[in-house]
């Protein structure tokens, strides 16, 4: 792989997914892209790169992007966000939205589904307080592969042992060969969709809770700031944003307030800050730059 190949790959990844690779991750390119090259019948990563420079190879570019993103997730990851969900966010929202009895929750980097399903399990466990409520959970991710796995609700023995207490495994899963499948009643609570956070959020609708965890960490400052501001525009007044343990809005977006003593939890106050009639007047819509590959 030449330095030009490397720079070119960095540029495509940034363009397509926001993913920014730092120097020491260079070896990752080679080790993660070699299997993609072989799958496409090529001998080297350089050959793969050459192929993406010719038009009509968006499929290969998607495969490259998927191979380079980190999809790791587990049930009830970091635990506290889910405590905040049941003990802070839900009680507040049940009071605040009692007029409409509707809530929409967005997992903006849902990966293989553990995060949205953990939320669905939390809701199931408090279902006696939710009679008459309509609660939607929408899980989106850039990668078609992880979305497909999320929809299937199938997890390995290893995956169900990271973060799931045993009574939840026996309570909400059944055995399917070597795998464990989450019950259809839980699966039915989540809608999955392939979606890139760099694209326009128009059409997603408004949300009351957004989990956007462990994805901004891979973006550069400008992309983080843009995504955070645009997420705020998709949030109803008095809504909650939850970030990953190593992520913050501080220095990136002024549309959120931290919730006292709840690390990683933020509120959007008032009527969506700079929004009038649902149209953001303060910020231009973020338009992704045209693809590096030259494909329209």
């Amino acid at each position, binding site marked *: 792989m030449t330095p030009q190949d490397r720079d070119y790959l960095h540029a495509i990844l940034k363009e397509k997914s926001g993913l920014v690779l730092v120097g020491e991750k260079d070896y990752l390119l080679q080790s993660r892209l070699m299997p993609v090259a072989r799958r496409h019948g090529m001998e080297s990563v350089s050959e793969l790169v050459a192929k993406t420079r010719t038009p009509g190879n968006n499929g290969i570019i998607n495969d490259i992007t998927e191979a380079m993103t980190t999809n790791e997730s*587990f049930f009830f990851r970091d*635990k506290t966000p889910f405590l905040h969900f049941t003990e802070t966010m839900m009680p507040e929202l049940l009071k605040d939205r009692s007029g409409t009895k509707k809530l929409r929750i967005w997992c903006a980097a849902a990966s293989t589904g553990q995060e949205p399903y953990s939320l669905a399990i939390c809701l199931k466990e408090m279902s006696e307080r939710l009679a008459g409520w309509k609660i939607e959970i929408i899980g989106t991710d850039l990668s078609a592969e992880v979305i497909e796995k999320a929809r299937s609700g199938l997890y390995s*023995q*290893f995956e169900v*042992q*990271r*973060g799931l*207490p*045993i*009574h939840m*495994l*026996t309570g909400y899963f*059944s*055995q399917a060969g070597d795998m464990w499948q989450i019950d259809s009643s839980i699966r039915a609570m989540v809608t999955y969709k392939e979606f890139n956070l760099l694209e326009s959020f128009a059409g997603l609708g408004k949300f009351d809770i957004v989990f956007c965890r462990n994805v901004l960490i891979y973006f550069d400052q400008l992309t983080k700031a843009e995504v955070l501001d645009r997420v705020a525009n998709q949030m109803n007044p008095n809504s909650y944003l939850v970030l990953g343990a190593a992520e913050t809005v501080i220095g990136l977006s002024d549309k959120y307030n931290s919730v006292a003593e709840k690390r990683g939890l933020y509120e959007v106050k008032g009527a969506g800050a700079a929004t009038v009639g649902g149209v953001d007047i303060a910020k231009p819509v973020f338009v992704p730059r045209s693809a590096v590959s030259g494909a329209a």
Partner: protein
Amino acid sequence: MKNCLVVDDSNVIRKVARRILEEMNFAIDEAADGQEALDKCRQGMPDVILLDWNMPVMDGMDFLIALRQEENGQAPKVIFCTTENDVGHIMKAMRSGANEYIMKPFDKEIFEAKFSEIGLI
């Protein structure tokens, strides 16, 4: 430092478990079957017991039932750690007083997840 009694008839498994649990800051004692484990518990209850199911002399289930009838036998947390990975075995273990359940093979991440599940780390 919390004490963990590792009960397994395979000394390879005991060694692997010991290495991981020592990294997690537990003081380890070992037993090769349920009877040996019960004798050790009678001398002093550990904070947690990592328990295999199938063992000679006294198996894990018989040990668990006996332990819970001992004076102070409710005190230790018991985590089954076994190749038995069907719902029937899991339910039976939990009904008999186990606190958590690990299906082999395990690794450090699973140990950390399960030990934190019952408030041990």
